[in-house]
């Protein structure tokens, strides 16, 4: 089986090199080359020589003498090194390596070439070329089975490639995985395979994904992790079948049949082989190697079943294939030998079987193929026993045991560490997942919490703001109401006080004065009597102005009319009026206010307006009364006067109007007069 995987590896590498080959395979015309060579021989300028070589090489035919091609490359490399053109030096090294690689005899040359290329790698200012140099160096080490150095070089290559070179990157990792596989680093190899697989998948390179899967499956079965290997192979086989790639499909199933054998599932193995045999045995497009090995395996199976007929039939089929197409195949030599031994064994030709078994062992040891070595010792032991060479049988058996145990131990350790890693990785991943979930939950909770807090804060702030605003508004309203109430109360108490004083003056002082006057009259003191009359008259005036007594008797309309008559009589102002009866519309206090408004308006007019005429209109409307007092005086600036604190008259007017729940309007024009309008709701 390992043989098969090695073979696959070779196939990959072949494809790989086609990707990288520069123009060495271009169709050349020897005439051009022949004309260039003399010019090259005589040219002394290094730069020109280099250009000429380049030209020659690009025109060389494929079947041109290989050694001459190599010489031209070497000359070119020398010039590149002398002119310190290390980028070209690197590129040429890569191209020459590809030529060396085709001949296994040039392995050492190839390695030293790439080592030289690596020594100048610091001067190559192109990270892709640098990466490819490392790749080739690694390949050179790889083919010399220097896996540790190969791995190192692949790692360097990996570091050089950027994301744009992901195909090279994947190759470097993929080959490193194979190198690690050979070194027996199960886990490192598996990791690299997975890494490479991801990159290939991203590149949509299905072929290479399959190669990697193949590698992984081989790795698994190598370490007896059969379940994983089987899982991958089933998928692979399906893919190959879909692609119509019967060759690789057959290889995959064959490999799987080997795994079944290892697991002692002889019938599963047989079923797989039978399936492959039925599909490809007569298909000449299929690699004869695989057709042969399937037949041999079937032959071996029937040998166990003691079905001599079938055993021989398949063996002969295999033999025919080898004879016709695979005479010199090293891959098929040992399996063929083994099957032949089994044939002789079944034919009871033990002498021949014994000889061949010994040869098989020797060849297997030469080939250093562990599976085959173990297999060979087992067969040799069995046949030796049958042949009667018990000593050799025992020795072979002992060796078989020894190899099996060591292989088992090695594999066991590897497998154990694989599963441990797997377990730890899973555990870590689970932990990580758990932690991530926890973190996500905490984050979600925190966000929720923050959101809640923010919402609540905003709500609280809004509520507080609203509350504050409402409170402010209420306070302002309350203050206004209180202010108005205060003004009203003040006005009322003022009126009450005036009324009281008026009454006191009238009833107290007035009556006293009367008594005095009566006495004086009796004493016939006329001059004192006159003085006293004046005093009484004055008292009357004060009393009346303090409280309009007539208001209570006449009602507001009559009182206003009376007031106007009085003003008309006592002043030079011509008063005209139209007074509607509004007595029943207002209570005593309101009537007093209305009366006072008229009275105070006239006070202002008499004091300031210098008016010669006043017109008073008191009009009753449906829901309100309109009182206008118009004079033809000098007019004034309302806002100026209103803000003047000395102008208490205007303020009081306003307050009284407000107390009545009415509105006051003042239209004043300088030198033209003033109109006071009061609109009072009934």
């Amino acid at each position, binding site marked *: 089986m390992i043989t098969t995987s090695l073979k696959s590896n070779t196939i990959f590498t072949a494809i790989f090199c086609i990707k990288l080959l520069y123009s060495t395979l271009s169709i050349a015309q020897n005439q051009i080359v022949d004309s260039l060579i003399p010019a090259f021989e005589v040219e002394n300028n290094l730069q020109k020589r280099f250009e000429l070589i380049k030209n020659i090489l690009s025109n060389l035919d494929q079947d041109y003498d290989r050694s001459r091609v190599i010489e031209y490359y070497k000359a070119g490399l020398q010039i590149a090194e002398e002119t310190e053109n290390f980028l070209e030096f690197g590129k040429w090294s890569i191209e020459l390596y590809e030529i060396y690689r085709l001949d296994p005899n040039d392995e050492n040359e190839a390695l030293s070439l790439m080592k030289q290329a690596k020594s100048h790698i610091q001067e190559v200012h192109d990270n892709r070329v640098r990466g490819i140099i490392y790749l080739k160096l690694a390949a050179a080490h790889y083919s010399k089975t220097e896996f540790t150095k190969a791995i190192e070089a692949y790692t360097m290559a990996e570091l050089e490639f950027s994301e744009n070179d992901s195909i090279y990157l994947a190759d470097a990792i993929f080959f490193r995985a194979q190198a690690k596989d050979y070194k027996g680093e199960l886990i490192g190899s598996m990791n690299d395979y997975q890494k490479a697989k991801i990159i290939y998948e991203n590149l949509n390179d299905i072929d290479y994904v399959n190669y990697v899967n193949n590698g992984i499956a081989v790795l698994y079965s190598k370490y007896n992790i059969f379940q994983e290997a089987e899982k991958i192979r089933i998928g692979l086989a399906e893919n190959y079948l879909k692609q119509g790639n019967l060759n690789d499909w057959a290889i995959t199933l064959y490999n799987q049949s080997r795994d079944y054998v290892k697991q002692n599932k002889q019938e599963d193995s047989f079923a797989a082989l039978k399936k492959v045999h039925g599909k490809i045995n007569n298909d000449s497009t299929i690699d004869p190697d695989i057709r042969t090995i399937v037949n041999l395996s079937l032959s071996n199976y029937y040998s166990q079943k003691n079905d001599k007929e079938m055993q021989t039939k398949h063996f002969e089929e295999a033999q025919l294939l080898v004879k016709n197409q695979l005479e010199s195949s090293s891959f098929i030599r040992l399996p063929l030998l083994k099957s032949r031994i089994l044939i002789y064994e079944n034919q009871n030709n033990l002498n021949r079987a014994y000889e061949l078994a010994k040869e098989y062992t020797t060849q297997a040891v030469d080939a250093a193929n562990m599976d085959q070595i173990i297999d060979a010792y087992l067969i040799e032991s069995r046949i030796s026993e049958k042949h009667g060479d018990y000593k050799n049988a025992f020795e072979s058996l002992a060796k078989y045991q020894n190899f099996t145990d060591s292989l088992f131990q090695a594999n066991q350790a590897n497998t154990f560490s694989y599963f441990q890693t797997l377990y730890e990785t899973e555990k870590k991943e689970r932990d990580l997942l758990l932690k991530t979930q926890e973190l996500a939950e905490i984050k979600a909770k925190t966000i929720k919490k923050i959101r809640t807090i923010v919402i609540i804060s905003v709500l609280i702030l809004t509520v507080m703001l609203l509350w504050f605003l409402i409170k402010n508004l209420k306070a302002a309203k309350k203050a206004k109401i209180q202010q108005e109430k205060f003004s009203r109360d003040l006005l009322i108490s003022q009126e009450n006080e005036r009324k009281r004083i008026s*009454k006191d003056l*009238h*009833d107290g002082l*007035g*009556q006293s*004065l*009367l*008594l005095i*006057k*009566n006495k004086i*009259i009796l004493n016939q003191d006329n001059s004192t009597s006159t003085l*006293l*009359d004046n005093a*009484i*008259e004055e008292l*009357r005036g004060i009393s*009346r102005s303090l409280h309009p*007594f*007539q208001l*209570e*008797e*006449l009602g507001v309309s*009559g009182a206003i009319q*009376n007031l106007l*008559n*009085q003003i*008309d*009589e*006592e002043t*030079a102002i*011509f*008063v*005209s009026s139209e007074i509607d009866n509004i007595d029943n519309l207002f209570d005593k206090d309101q009537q007093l206010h209305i009366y006072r408004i008229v009275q105070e308006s006239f006070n202002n007019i008499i004091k300031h307006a210098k008016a*010669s*005429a*006043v*017109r008073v209109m008191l009009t009753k409307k449906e829901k309100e009364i309109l009182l206008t007092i*118009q004079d*033809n005086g000098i007019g004034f600036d309302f806002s100026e006067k209103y803000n003047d604190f000395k102008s208490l008259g205007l303020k009081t007017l306003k307050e009284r109007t407000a107390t009545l729940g009415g509105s006051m309007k003042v239209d004043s024009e300088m030198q033209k007069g003033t109109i006071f309008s009061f609109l009072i709701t009934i």
Partner: protein
Amino acid sequence: MSIELIIADDHPLLLKGLRDFLEENNFNILAQANNGKDALGLIEKHKPKIAILDLEMPEMTGLEVATACRIKKINTKIILLTLHKEIFILHQAKTLNISGYLLKDFAIEELINCIQKINVGEEYYSEKLFPEEKNNLNTVQNEKLTPSEIKILKLIADGLTSKEIAIKLFIAERTVDKHRSNIISKMNLDKKHNSLLIWAQNNKGKFF
């Protein structure tokens, strides 16, 4: 038979003084009260010919008592005797059911005269109630010019036309013309167009 009276005043000294004065002059005081309500009760009870009431009293004012009497159809004549000097009472005496109006400070001089006049069915209003005459214009029919008429007269004297006067005084031109004709008839002037203007200018000093 002496005239029967009811008197009311909330001021006890004045009430006593009044009673003494009336009795000295042989009037028959049927009853006296010191508030309006009692006074009304006494009037209802005694139905005197005349009641002398103070204007301002507790419970009911003199005017309210008078109004009540009229509503209750009591024929008692009411004389207001008060310190208040309110022209409106005089102007509305009929509606208010007031037959006499005296100022207390001049009561002694006028009261007897007043009672006698009212007793024979006349009315009596104290001369002292009227403001002092400011002008001494001669008028016919004993009619004085009103303050408004005097103001218009002044404007006429200043040479303003009726229209100008109307605008100046915020009144209708018709109203001015009415005042004019009133003045002309009161002063017994010629009905010619310019006669009032000429008269006003000639007599300017008299009504200033």
